């Protein structure tokens, strides 16, 4: 539990997340009914998911940080059962970081094309590498969307050596 100026911050482990948020929302002494934001963070060592809540009882924000998520398999229970609006925010966190929210009905990419292979906001994402690897390499018309990218490579084109 930490106090940062006008924001109180608490750290929660993924297992307790749903319970904590439910208590915060439903308990009469807290009544944190407004979920202001759901954010994913890649700290370089590990992944976090950060929730911000607001209650009518005080003008301060409450920050709930779920930390300790491993970088190769970050899994967090979903809060869409409590707040419907978190659905797209969780989709965005998945799209940008690869954080899997368990319990959502709809965990698809929201910004990137559906067949994109990388997670852009991670700290190990570098654009030149990705462009050479991703299906975005080589221009494909919509009619060719079903063809795998290898079939489209024109051997006369100069390709980057990065692999």
């Amino acid at each position, binding site marked *: 539990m930490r106090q*940062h*100026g*006008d*924001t109180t*911050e608490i750290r929660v482990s993924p297992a307790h997340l749903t319970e904590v948020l439910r208590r915060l929302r439903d308990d009469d002494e807290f009544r944190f*009914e*407004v*979920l*202001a*934001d759901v*954010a*994913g*963070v*890649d700290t370089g060592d590990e992944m976090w998911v*950060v929730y*911000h809540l*607001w209650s*009518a009882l005080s*003008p*301060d*924000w409450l*920050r709930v940080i779920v930390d300790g998520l491993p970088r190769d398999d970050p899994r967090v229970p979903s809060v869409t059962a*409590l*707040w*419907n*609006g*978190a*659905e*797209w*925010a969780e989709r965005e966190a998945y799209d*940008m970081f690869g954080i899997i929210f368990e319990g*959502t*009905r*709809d*965990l*698809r*990419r*929201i*910004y*990137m*094309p*559906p*067949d994109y292979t990388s997670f*852009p*906001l991670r700290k190990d*994402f570098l654009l030149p590498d990705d462009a050479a690897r991703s299906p975005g390499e080589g221009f494909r018309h*919509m*009619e060719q*969307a*079903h*063809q795998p990218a290898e079939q489209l490579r024109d051997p006369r084109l100069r390709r980057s050596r990065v692999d």
Partner: protein
Amino acid sequence: MADRNNVRSLDDPNIWVDTPATIFDAVPPYPPRTEREAEFYHLRDGELLINLGPQHPSTHGVLRVVLKIDGERVVDLDPVLGYLHRGVEKICENGDWHHAISNCDPLEYVASLFSEAMPVLVAEKLLGLEVPRRAEYIRVLTWELNRIASHALYTGWQALDMGGLTPILYGFIERDEIVEMLAALTGQRMLFNYLRIGGVNGDLNHDFLSRLGDWMSHAGTQLEANAQLLNENEIFVRRMRGLGIVDREAALRTCLSGPVLRATGIPYDVRRAHPYSVYPEIEFDIPTRAEGDCYARFMLHLDEVRESIRIIDQVLHEMPDGPVMAKVPRLIRIPPGRAFIAVESPRGQYACYGMSDGSDQPFRLRIHDPSFFNLQIMNSMLPGNLIADMMAIFASLDPIMGGIDK
């Protein structure tokens, strides 16, 4: 040239066939990845998938919505975002805190001072910087002017989406004066790049003040003309009243904010809930309405314009003298920390969660755009309405794709 034999007939019960998808299909050419997708792309008898595509005369920006319709009724919808995704957050991480200002400008391009406020206010909070009072007052003044300009545009395209060709031009008359005023102040008509970490970029000048004075004498008259044209208009009212009703519980659960939330009766306004800048010292009300339908949202925007004019009046009277920029080093290095700020933009709660790691680049700037969350209410509100209603509801949510897609 697509082969005609590949076109599947509407009677085909099996959607996931091996023939490659053609350009005529709204159905994706891969198997469904989630249960929601499977549910959505399973068509019953008589249902049609229609693509309200990214190029459309009336989606506010590039939004693609795959509609499942039965005749004229919308049964389900699947918004596909990302057509305007510019990677703002990633680019902010690669640049300076100052670069983040002009980078975040186009997020809410209609009222860009609010999106500029994101990196600025976060940096000031992380540094613990005290902004001069004159700068704060100027910020509030320009914020409220921006709000009026944005609402002027909103009333215009709410009517335009329903076929009225005139109100948008009246709205633009109002917006044009404000935007010219802000151009005299900031040098730009639209993406102002005016806020700076520690204040604003330049004091008020004579041109701006004279234009502001002229405008204040007939502030909001064009919008009142719009209101006159539309408020009692039978066709307009019958198309909007009782449409797209959002109730309070659903509103809180969908994390709505802004006029969409206040039209349901919940008086949540960031300026009063979590006061920032000099809003605690300014007297204004939070307009709310109880019905939660499109008409209530429309009237609420007009109410907010009147409140904004009141705020501008007070700000002009109480503007203190002083510097407009705090003493900030050229290269801003912020000690490690985390901060969360929120402002009340014309669309709702515009929030930013910033993390800094001690270097001169932001470590993480997470921008929470209100239109992103406001748009989710469409999934629950729209089924059962007609396509024509969809445009009306969509316009009343006032989405800006720049912020939604970041």
